[in-house]
């Protein structure tokens, strides 16, 4: 018992050592964006045409490096400022997945190979665009829980901005690092105590293995900068498609994300959004 706990701990620490540097890079960039990029800058560029807006927002999301935990408040702020829902949501969905840090960590985690990096990006783009188009048809209003007046007073001097960046980085480290540590612990406990045969029994078929990995992504609530390392530790157990589902589903929706969304958006809308993400990722993973 003690011996197996020590092995659990060793696996747990090794996951943290691998992923913490990426979390550090992530929180720092998130801090820079918080301080130096204004909502107005992004909003000015949203096209009037709905389809164009969806594609454009998806692309912006792809270029925008953010953690899934940091992007929900940003999305809410964008929507409150008048960015249409069908543009803001695809932005929120691709932001945490397609960005240099996440793709680089995916590259490293999957043995310096581009296969999973490409698969993850294309899969995420497709899901985000489809959901954006659906939302454009379905919703006319902003679906926010309540309208709030946001006074985002940005610090003026450059020194203040950099100080704010660092302060935000540390805040972000403590809020997202927590979910990473808990997630790493749960993952290593599963590795140590759950026999592979048990996991295989749940996730044997193509369909059920995708569902198991998606459920896992939801429960573990990993930061997208680090989840590739957890996914690669399941390479022995699950198929490539199921791992891709894990890597796309997790950053789009998970426990901590859902809680944050429920604080900002109407419950009905959050449920509809989760249902869409689940269906698209699941169906998509069957074709990989």
């Amino acid at each position, binding site marked *: 018992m003690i011996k197996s706990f020590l092995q659990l701990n060793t696996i747990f620490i090794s996951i943290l050592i691998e992923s*913490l540097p990426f979390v550090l890079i992530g929180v720092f960039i998130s801090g820079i964006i918080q301080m130096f990029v204004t909502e107005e800058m992004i909003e000015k560029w949203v096209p009037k045409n709905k389809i164009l807006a969806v594609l454009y927002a998806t692309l912006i999301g792809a270029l925008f490096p953010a953690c899934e935990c940091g992007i929900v408040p940003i999305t809410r702020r964008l929507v409150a400022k008048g960015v249409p829902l069908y543009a803001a949501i695809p932005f929120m969905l691709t932001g945490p997945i397609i960005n240099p840090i996440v793709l680089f960590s995916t590259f490293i985690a999957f*043995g310096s190979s581009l296969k999973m990096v490409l698969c993850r990006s294309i899969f995420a783009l497709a899901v985000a665009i489809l959901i954006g188009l659906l939302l454009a048809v379905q919703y006319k209003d902003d679906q926010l829980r309540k309208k709030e007046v946001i006074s985002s007073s940005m610090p003026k001097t450059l020194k203040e901005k950099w100080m704010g960046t660092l302060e935000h980085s540390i805040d972000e480290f403590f809020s997202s690092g927590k979910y990473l540590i808990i997630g790493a612990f749960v993952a290593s406990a599963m590795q*140590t105590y759950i026999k592979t045969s048990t996991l295989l029994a749940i996730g044997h078929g193509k369909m059920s293995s995708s569902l198991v990995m998606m459920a896992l992504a939801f429960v573990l609530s990993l930061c997208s900068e680090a989840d590739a390392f957890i996914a690669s530790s399941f390479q022995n157990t699950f198929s490539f498609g199921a791992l891709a589902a894990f890597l796309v589903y997790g950053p789009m929706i998970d426990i901590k994300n859902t809680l944050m969304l429920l604080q900002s958006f109407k419950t009905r809308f959050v449920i509809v959004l989760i249902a869409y993400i689940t269906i698209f990722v699941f169906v998509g993973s069957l074709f990989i």
Partner: protein
Amino acid sequence: MLRTYILLGFTFLFFHLHTTGDISKYINMRYSYLSFSAIFIFAFLTIVQFRIANRKENGHHCHDETCCHHHEEDQPKWKKALNYFVFIFPIASALFLPIATLDSEIVKAKGFRIPGFETESADPFGQRQFLRPDTSIYYGKEGYKDLMRKELAVFAKQSRLVLNDNNYLKAMETIYQFPGQFSDKEIEFDGFVYHDKTTNSQQLFVLRFGIIHCVADSGVFGLLTEFPENPHLKNDEWIHVKGKLSTIYFQPFNVTIPYVQVKEWHTIKAPEEPYVFRGYD
């Protein structure tokens, strides 16, 4: 102030792992530059946090909504305590608990089976990374075949295979890929003993854990060995074996696998570096 200590703790943890060299018991050293840079980032953040905490204590409370959006102060005390405990736990457990080495217990937990030889198996879920290293997932089908042929050329030339830390995984992968090519070749390698419930008294597996990035993605790799007589070895004893490669139809797994007819063997001390790593060039 607690935040400063936690950041300091992480700085020290990464520093400690690098100076003592213990880091190699957790991750593939190929990626150590990442955790090495983390020392400096953590150190820097510690200083920043220290200044922020000081500033707040001096009453210059941050009045800007954009930088104080995490309403830490609103949380009940027990929630805050639990919050920080999550951060303190890994620092403490990494520094004070001994590092475990993966052994036969984990082999049991991870399950154990031998995959068939066809790489393009109809059942992709049957591919387990046990015994036989399979890196095909990292390469395209064609690229993988090319790579395997290249490695086969290297190993097939040698009349005797002497495996060490550097070529262990590559050699194992090639042997499992082309078992026929290696029949009757002499082989020499180290590993720990693993008795499976399917092996008889003269058979046992000699295995090593291979690591791709960190301990979490490890798999066990090695060969079935057959001794002339019961060697009376226990699980996790390290041995050096010398013998002849051959193939055997292994009933429990319904598959023909390579195995070693042991000629000479002796027990050895567990190596300084129990894991083998694979680089991808």
